[in-house]
């Protein structure tokens, strides 16, 4: 993964046209809709071309909306329908046609990073100064659930990277005084643990899949998305989520929730690796740092493009700084928040 590859003149001049592409799309869609957020304690402005695009993607950021106060550290331009005036990459699509989200095409130069995901046909471009980005999709209302529940994932991860944060694969819950990072592969109980926290009003939700973590001696978790996802067959174990079900979204693959009361972030107090057991009550046991690193690092590194090789050392540093636990999940999900609160009081 060479970051040193320099871009020929073509991309730079093409990127310059993105601004015009967005403005033209915004005019056609009835004007730009501005969303002001605070992400990782920084002002972020998202400009949508038209209401439809804004409506489709703003729910995931409902908890981070903030009044316009200072110049944005990042401005994203988001539009659909009218394709950007640059072409998708060519000549490398012979091995396309796999399942999953399909292959992606990544390019970077001195002044940009760009990703095209042909399966959903989404294009993400971030300028190297990392204060401007562009996101194009064919139809804002037809994105797959993994895109509309965690919009602009690549753009935000590249930007956070430049700002000294790490976009990690994990859920997080806690209080303003501190919380836990919940790590593990899909199916390990990460989402269940995070979403069960809503059963106890003392705990606040910060995400079930992706959060940002600040480096430094006192690590801090920053929420990115207030969305949550569970398999429809697991819904009966989490009946308290029903009022939060996102309207109009099919339940075929995942049931989607938006938790508007989610917290923007908290100091990181512990890392928790859930494990599904046949116990009744949840129980936290001390875990090894290596097990926490193995649960956190590989999926953090491979979820995003390009794989973030430096994340392993960063995650190891994080794991050394806070206690790690195995959280044995039981059949009674109501005991999960109680056990997490007990752990946070230690």
């Amino acid at each position: 993964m060479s970051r040193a590859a320099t871009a020929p003149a073509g991309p730079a001049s093409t990127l310059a046209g993105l601004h015009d592409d967005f403005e033209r799309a915004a005019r056609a869609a009835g004007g730009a809709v501005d969303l002001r957020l605070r992400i990782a304690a920084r002002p972020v402005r998202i400009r949508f071309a038209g209401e439809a695009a804004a409506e489709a993607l703003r729910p995931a950021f409902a908890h981070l909306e903030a009044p316009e106060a200072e110049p944005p550290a990042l401005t994203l331009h988001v539009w659909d329908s009218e394709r950007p005036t640059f072409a998708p990459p060519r000549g490398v699509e012979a091995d396309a046609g796999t399942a999953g989200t399909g292959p992606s095409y990544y390019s970077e130069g001195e002044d940009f990073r760009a990703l095209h995901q042909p399966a959903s046909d989404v294009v993400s471009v971030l300028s190297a100064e990392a204060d401007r980005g562009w996101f194009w999709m064919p139809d804002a209302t037809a994105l797959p659930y993994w895109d509309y529940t965690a919009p602009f994932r690549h753009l935000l991860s590249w930007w956070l990277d430049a700002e000294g944060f790490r976009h990690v694969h994990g859920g997080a819950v806690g209080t303003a005084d501190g919380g836990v990072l919940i790590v593990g592969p899909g199916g390990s109980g990460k989402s269940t643990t995070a979403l069960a926290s809503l059963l106890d009003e003392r705990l606040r939700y910060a995400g079930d899949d992706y959060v940002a973590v600040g480096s430094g001696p006192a690590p801090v978790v920053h929420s990115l998305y207030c969305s949550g996802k569970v398999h429809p067959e697991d819904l009966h174990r989490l009946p308290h989520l029903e009022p939060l079900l996102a309207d109009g979204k099919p339940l075929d693959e995942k049931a989607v929730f938006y938790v508007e009361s989610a917290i923007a972030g908290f100091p990181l107090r512990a890392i928790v690796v859930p494990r599904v057991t046949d116990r009744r009550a949840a129980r936290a046991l001390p875990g090894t740092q290596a097990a926490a690193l193995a649960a956190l690092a590989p999926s953090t590194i491979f979820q995003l493009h390009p794989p973030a090789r430096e994340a392993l050392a960063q995650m190891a540093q994080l794991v050394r700084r806070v206690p790690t636990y195995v959280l044995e999940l039981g059949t009674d999900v109501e005991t999960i928040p109680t056990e997490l609160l007990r752990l946070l009081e230690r």
Partner: protein
Amino acid sequence: MTTRFRVNSPNVIHETIEGEVILIDLKTGTYYSLREAGAAIWEAIDRGAGLDAIEDALERRYEGSSDEIREAARRLVDELEREGLVRAEEADGSRPVFEPGHGVRRPFEAPSLEKHTDMQDLILLDPVHEVGAQGWPHPAPPDEASG
């Protein structure tokens, strides 16, 4: 000339935490862990050791017959090579010197390489192609730019 082993950088990244090594192959998505004698062997390889120096490092920390230790070390190094995590190379010069282990030597147990392939699906199903050399993004032909 002696045969030494090297970590297969830059494809392989690794961290040692509480004496356990986590290894990640960035090309395949496979990740591995090594404990105890396995972690000691990895540390020796990371310092450019050959089989003799690896055996020396193990004998300073573990109690066991030389044959047993040599055989177990050879087996693990072969496996690391097969997995593409290390590569052998011919080299001159001095071999790394290992300090004696702290405290009493522990009984030797043959190490094993724990292998996890759950990330491979992600890599194989959703591969990422770098297209920087082709200069993407590039302007679309006029007929597509209007679409």
